[in-house]
């Protein structure tokens, strides 16, 4: 089955893509480029750099602009998926939704309307086990956004590794933080992994942090041989 993956460049869409590639054919990556930094549906920091990941894993990307306003975002998503059907002939859509009923139900409705299959291969996954899987399978994931107490400046730009996972586990117990950032606490970007033919090297990035809200914006990056 030929599938399109809703793709932000964050760990969830990359790992969903990896699972889709194991059993089906991924025909394209569908990226909604939102102008609203607080988008309801779409991961925003560094989404413009998702093209590098698409090139690194060797799958064509369909970029689709959205103003990022609630309500209009959904019609933009529908239009993007419909364009992927026309351009790449996809028969289904893959998302990286883990627990968000809001997100999952809306994509399911769009797929039903367009008569497409819908797959959510991370649905209800244990978040800590999932982070450990990412590390053990060789994904190099960095944190590009933090949006919750008590995540301090040290998290901005940090690599998700065993040490960070242990810290997230402790924060989950103490503060109820979703360790994979499903509640909007974290945003990520993937630099390398088993489906990458090349890895991404960041050449220049801007870091900002204030009052438990921080970003690492990738300004310049390139693909390098592995």
């Amino acid at each position, binding site marked *: 089955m030929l599938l399109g993956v809703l793709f932000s460049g964050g760990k969830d869409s990359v790992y969903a893509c990896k699972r889709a590639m194991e059993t089906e054919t991924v025909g394209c990556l569908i990226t909604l480029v939102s102008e609203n930094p607080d988008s309801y549906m779409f991961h925003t920091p560094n989404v413009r750099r998702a093209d590098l990941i698409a090139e690194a894993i060797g799958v064509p990307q369909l970029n689709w602009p959205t103003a990022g306003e609630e309500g209009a975002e959904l019609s933009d998503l529908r239009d993007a998926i419909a364009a992927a059907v026309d351009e790449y002939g996809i028969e289904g859509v893959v998302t990286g939704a883990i627990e968000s009923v809001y997100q999952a139900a809306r994509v399911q*409705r769009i797929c039903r309307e367009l008569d497409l299959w819908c797959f959510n291969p991370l649905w209800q996954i244990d978040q800590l086990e999932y982070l450990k899987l990412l590390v053990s399978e060789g994904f190099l994931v960095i944190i590009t956004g933090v949006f919750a107490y008590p995540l301090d400046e040290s998290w901005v730009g940090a690599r998700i590794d065993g040490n960070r996972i242990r810290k997230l586990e402790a924060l989950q117990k103490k503060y109820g933080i979703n360790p994979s950032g499903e509640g909007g606490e974290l945003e990520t970007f993937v630099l390398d992994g088993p489906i990458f033919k090349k890895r991404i090297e960041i050449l220049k990035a801007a870091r900002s942090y204030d009052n438990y809200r921080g970003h690492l914006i990738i300004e310049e990056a390139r693909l390098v041989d592995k």
Partner: protein
Amino acid sequence: MILVVDLCFKPESLSRYEFVDPIAGIVSRAGVEHEVVHFSELTDDLIERADGIILCGTALKDNIYAERIGLFSWIDRINKPILGICAGMQVVAAVFGGGIVPQPKIGLEWIEIIKETHLLGPPREIEGYHLHNFGVTLPPGFKIVAGRPGQIEAFKHAERPIYGIVFHPEVRNRWVVERFVDLG
């Protein structure tokens, strides 16, 4: 051992992560041994060894199980706890003479439990996640446990521990699977 039956369109499908693994995970975290098998690969030995059997749901566009209802005739021959979830509920209904009817629903909705059972407990309202294009008509010998005719949310065989629920318990209602495991 709880047997978790995968009703998705093919063995080891991409849908397995979404409809089978979350249910198997709940059983596992409850400390109960389980085995997962695709419906096309079920054996008499597996069914014999199971203390309870869960028939999982499928993707909205996946109705292949409904074209192969004959593979599920064993359901009527055994006297073990069975829980059909969404597509699994449709299979149970079809095996016992009920119908599979168009009834699309996606998202969280309130469910009225109208009859006390070991599985769902006393009458009350709960919120459940729905993801289905089809519902069921009540098979002979079954009673409605939640919902109403034309919108059956849960049913139970009048005498045997055979249940069907149309909502997906892995979202906000994991306790349903945990209670089912206790029935076994």
